[in-house]
């Protein structure tokens, strides 16, 4: 494996930042990563969330995590957003493009994109 020295340098840069961050995540983005989700394209959706949350400087408040089958396989890729004191928002049939939009408008701007939610499908 290459450049473990580079990794050491990254570690030195990050140390203080990570200590500060601990326990401050107040929003959780959860992506279904069971067989159904993966087959429907959850991997690029997850990676887009990880990338954009970081790019938009939201990593201190937003945690991106994975879960198993949410039980609505026909709507995969499914993304649930949990925020303290607010109702859960379920986005369905997600794509990396929609993920970018959700980060910008919902996570950053605080506005739910109704047309991508499961409610709009029913």
């Amino acid at each position, binding site marked *: *494996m*290459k450049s473990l020295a580079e990794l*050491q340098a990254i570690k030195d840069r*990050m140390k203080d930042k*990570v200590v500060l961050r601990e326990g401050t995540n107040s929003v959780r983005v959860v992506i279904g990563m*069971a067989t159904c989700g993966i087959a429907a394209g959850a*991997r690029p959706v997850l990676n887009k969330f*990880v990338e954009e949350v970081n790019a938009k400087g939201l990593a201190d408040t937003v945690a*991106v995590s994975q879960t*198993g089958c949410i039980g609505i396989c026909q709507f995969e890729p499914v993304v649930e957003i949990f925020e303290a004191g607010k109702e859960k928002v379920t986005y369905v049939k997600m794509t990396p493009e929609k993920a970018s939009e959700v980060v910008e408008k919902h996570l950053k701007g605080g506005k739910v994109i109704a047309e991508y939610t499961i409610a709009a499908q029913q």
Partner: protein
Amino acid sequence: MKELSLNILDIAENSVKANATLTQIILKEDADTVTLSIIDDGKGMSEEILRGVVDPFYTTRTTRKVGLGLPLLKMAAEQTGGEMKISSKQATDESKEHGTSVTATFNKNHLDFTPLGDVASTIVTLIQGHPDTDFYFEHTYLQNSVNFDSREVRQVLGPEIPLNEYEILEWISNTLEEQYKNLYKV
């Protein structure tokens, strides 16, 4: 699945769910074949579950026990004239050994071979979701290879920095990408 790398992600998720502390993902490739092995030290499966696990229509379950992941991998292998084998061990009073091993072989030149796709992305995704378990990854093509061992990363980072911090995932992604540039150069 559109890419074999997605099957790999799916099967490795089973390993994590079986409480594996180390999941090894090994791809051995030559001009004609690909052999995929996913070996974990998780809790293993009983013989009864093992027997049914590749058959999507076999079930003894009352609640969901087995899914479609292994049948899909088996199908992907068999449609190229290859095969899938699985063995599993649960700890017993006599032996503490436990874990599951899945091996699938593929004929690359077969019309129905599913391309490997973005395997590096699968490794990064696994670490993003499971920063506290270890993954060993090796992809060889003839004499060339791509290697990654999360235990080495963990050793450098120490306990205070989780492996799924963005900067770390980025580094892992870059190190894999760099190695992949040379994998098929012979």
